[in-house]
């Protein structure tokens, strides 16, 4: 585009046949600059790798903490599934009264399922599990009560809701008393909540530092190319043209840093998985670590790319404006 000489059309402008062709060229040019800035990074491999490593490691920590929360949640969700309220039925109640109670409890909106364990079933089970089978034969009567196991709905498994349900169930006339081991659940939930909060705080701090690291790296790059920027401005480069390579560099840092973080996390998971399996084996349970899903991987890279863009945009906007060709 010629501003001072309206009639002046260079050969290039004559080639532009339509807005569509112009748009196509604009996009091609942007991608060309992207590839060019990747080449620029390649020309300074050590500095680029160090920056990427710092970014990658800074992103690895929140990603790892996220996985810790995710795995702990997986374990605790298993515990929550098992959370039950045990209702001990009064000895004076007949079997028919107890069955009526079971049917009534099943109609509670807070109750997901109800199971009845008769005193006889309980004794048989106790005999087989406890190892006191023969000793128990000497008892005159069965000392165990009938028990109704109530599993609350998912919503009512939270400590407060479960406690409210227990009070409600204990009010039933057939029930002697109920038991809900809720203290450990409260502690676990409190710990999980603390962990989540800590992860969010640490993540925010690290993401801010990633943005600042990229911003500072781009700032140094801008300062290093001050002369080039001046010359570009002198020969008619627009701000968009000058900004583009630096923005691309920030984006590349983000993309490669994100990939670096993903690989680091994956390696860490692979390294820890056998140790975790051994620990689970000792507790006679099977547990395997959950890694990042494809969606989470995509989000990690997208987040890193966005931070790269934001960091570079802040620097570019702040510093390139200040560089003016002041000396002919």
């Amino acid at each position: 585009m010629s501003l001072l000489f309206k009639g002046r059309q260079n050969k290039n402008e004559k080639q532009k046949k339509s807005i569509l062709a112009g748009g196509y060229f604009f996009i091609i040019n942007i991608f060309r600059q992207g590839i060019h800035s990747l080449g620029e990074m390649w020309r300074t491999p050590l500095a680029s790798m160090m920056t990427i490593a710092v970014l990658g490691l800074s992103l690895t920590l929140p990603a790892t903490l996220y996985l810790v929360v995710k795995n702990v949640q997986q374990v605790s969700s298993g515990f929550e599934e098992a959370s039950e309220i045990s209702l001990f039925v009064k000895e004076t109640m007949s079997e028919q009264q107890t069955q009526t109670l079971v049917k009534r409890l099943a109609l509670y909106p807070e109750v997901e399922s109800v199971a009845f364990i008769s005193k006889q079933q309980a004794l048989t089970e106790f005999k087989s599990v406890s190892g006191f089978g023969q000793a128990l034969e000497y008892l005159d009567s069965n000392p165990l009560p009938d028990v109704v196991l109530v599993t609350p709905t998912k919503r009512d498994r939270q400590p407060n809701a479960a406690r409210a349900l227990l009070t409600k169930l204990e009010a039933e006339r057939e029930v002697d008393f109920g038991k809900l081991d809720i203290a450990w659940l409260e502690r676990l939930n409190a710990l999980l909540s603390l962990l989540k909060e800590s992860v969010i705080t640490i993540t925010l701090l690290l993401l801010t530092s990633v943005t600042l690291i990229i911003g500072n790296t781009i700032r140094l790059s801008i300062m290093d190319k001050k002369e080039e920027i001046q010359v570009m401005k002198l020969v008619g480069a627009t701000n968009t043209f000058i900004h583009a390579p630096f923005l691309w560099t920030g984006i590349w840092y983000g993309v490669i840093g994100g990939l670096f973080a993903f690989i680091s996390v994956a390696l860490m998971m692979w390294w820890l998985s056998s140790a975790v399996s051994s620990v689970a084996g000792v507790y006679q349970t099977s547990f395997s670590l959950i890694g990042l899903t494809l969606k989470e991987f995509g989000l990690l890279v997208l987040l890193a790319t966005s931070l790269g863009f934001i960091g570079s945009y802040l620097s570019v906007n702040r510093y390139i404006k200040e560089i003016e060709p002041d000396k002919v």
Partner: protein
Amino acid sequence: MINFQQVSKTYPGGHRALEKVNFHIKPGELAFLTGHSGAGKSTLLKLISLMERPSAGNVFINGVDLNKVNSRQIPYARRDIGIIFQNHRLLERHTVFDNVALPLIIEGTHHNQIAKRVHGALDKVGLIDKVKCHPSMLSGGEQQRVGIARAIVNSPPILLADEPTGNLDPELSMEILRLFEDFNKHGTTVLIATHDLGLVARMRYRSLTLKDGRMLQDPLAQEVL
């Protein structure tokens, strides 16, 4: 083509670089701008290339008042002006080809055209065999010629040169000036700032002389007013 009307420039701090300067350079003219260091030559070129704005008066290029060119339009205005510097101002990390191609890349020229026109420009300045060299591999004269090739590669109607022969020996200086003469013969308006009066005398073109920010000799100045 280039028209200064009562142009003054005072820098922050009070230094008055130009004082009511009037002159007119016609399309296709070659003129010298002479004067001692600090006379205002660089300021005058800066005003034409929109690196500075006048404190008073108006600068017109092809009838366009540069005071009315906003900051977003400056890059497009600069594409119509080729600038050559005493210290070449080449991009050291890039090859001769990349340096010369820069204005074309900025304009968004197709890469086939870029190659053709860069080779054409380098051919004109006699450096076609140095395409792949980096500036550090070239002599001072060759670097200056690369700077000239960069300035003319997009065929700007105006060519400004600030002390283009400042660091060169007399023989090379004449060679460079003959290049300008050649571009001028093809219709480019050329304004060369120099303090080498001997060189100006040998070339026999119009000479504008600045002293302490004032225009001393310009036989055509009255035409402007």
